[in-house]
């Protein structure tokens, strides 16, 4: 009983904490990997199982967390509003030659991050891009103009 309550509390806490931290942090992982993958489980495991390190308690804790993950995925699949609240929506960072700086500020994505993503998909300039979107999983999608044509109106952008 106690372990189930602990698991529910930790799940709710992590769900909202990771949502607040922001999708970009989850998408990057490299710099924050240490905190998210190693330190947080280390800190929370004590809270999850308490002083009881029996296999029974571990299975109860793990199955409660897995159940919550599955229930969460059911709701996420069935209800768009739920999905939008918990996972967030994609955010446009760049649209046809225009940086949407308010969105970039809110998501803490800088121009260098975006340029890095552009290079990774084999392009070199913003002017080759039609859309740049921060997806809800934290990854940046760069959508170039069709046939890789550089828009002459945007050629003044790098």
């Amino acid at each position, binding site marked *: 009983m106690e372990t189930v309550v602990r698991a529910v509390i930790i799940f709710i806490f992590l769900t909202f904490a990771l949502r607040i931290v922001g999708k970009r942090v989850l998408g990057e992982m490299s710099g924050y990997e240490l905190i998210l993958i190693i330190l947080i489980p280390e800190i929370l495991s004590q809270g999850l199982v308490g002083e009881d390190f029996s296999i029974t308690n571990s*299975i109860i804790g793990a199955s409660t967390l897995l159940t919550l993950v599955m229930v969460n995925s059911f709701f996420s699949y069935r209800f768009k509003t739920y999905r939008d609240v918990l996972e967030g*929506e994609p955010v446009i960072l760049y649209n046809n030659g225009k940086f949407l700086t308010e969105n970039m500020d809110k998501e803490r994505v800088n121009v260098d991050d975006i340029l890095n993503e552009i290079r990774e998909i084999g392009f070199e300039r913003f002017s080759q891009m039609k859309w740049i979107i921060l997806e809800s999983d934290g990854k940046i999608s760069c959508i170039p103009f069709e046939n890789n044509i550089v828009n002459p109106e945007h050629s003044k952008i790098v």
Partner: protein
Amino acid sequence: MEENIFSTPEVPSRLRFRNYQLVGMIFLFSIPLLAMTGLFSVKDKKIQTTKKNIEIKVDFNSRIRIGQTMKFNVSLNNISDSKIPSVEIDFAEDYVVQFEKVRSSPEMASKTGISLADLGPGEMKTAFIEMKAIEFGNHSGKLSVSSADEKLFETTLDTLILP
């Protein structure tokens, strides 16, 4: 007109599962639900009886998890007008070896027994043992209470130690 790249077609969705997923989910979901009912928690058991001139109460755990400490109480109440000479409380060795003694009051006289001094008329004494579960499985063994080589009470203790 502004192009909305996030617009998606309306596709009806409903939850569907493969058979093995359904079986797995029922199994997975049942664990926290059963845990909420207390099925995997510590369960106390009380045995209370009156034999001859003595009232005996035994409190122990019939279910416990490995590594947890069982609090074991044996209370003896002399309900007669005469003194009951020194009382011995003995556990079956098969049962005791599944636990590691943490502490007891009074100190155990042997590996499996506790001695209590004479019980005066109307007097009540309690033996208290804390034992840590070290071997999982269902363990049972006899507990006997005797005085001056006369067996006053005997019962079987059953404890399930979850892994």
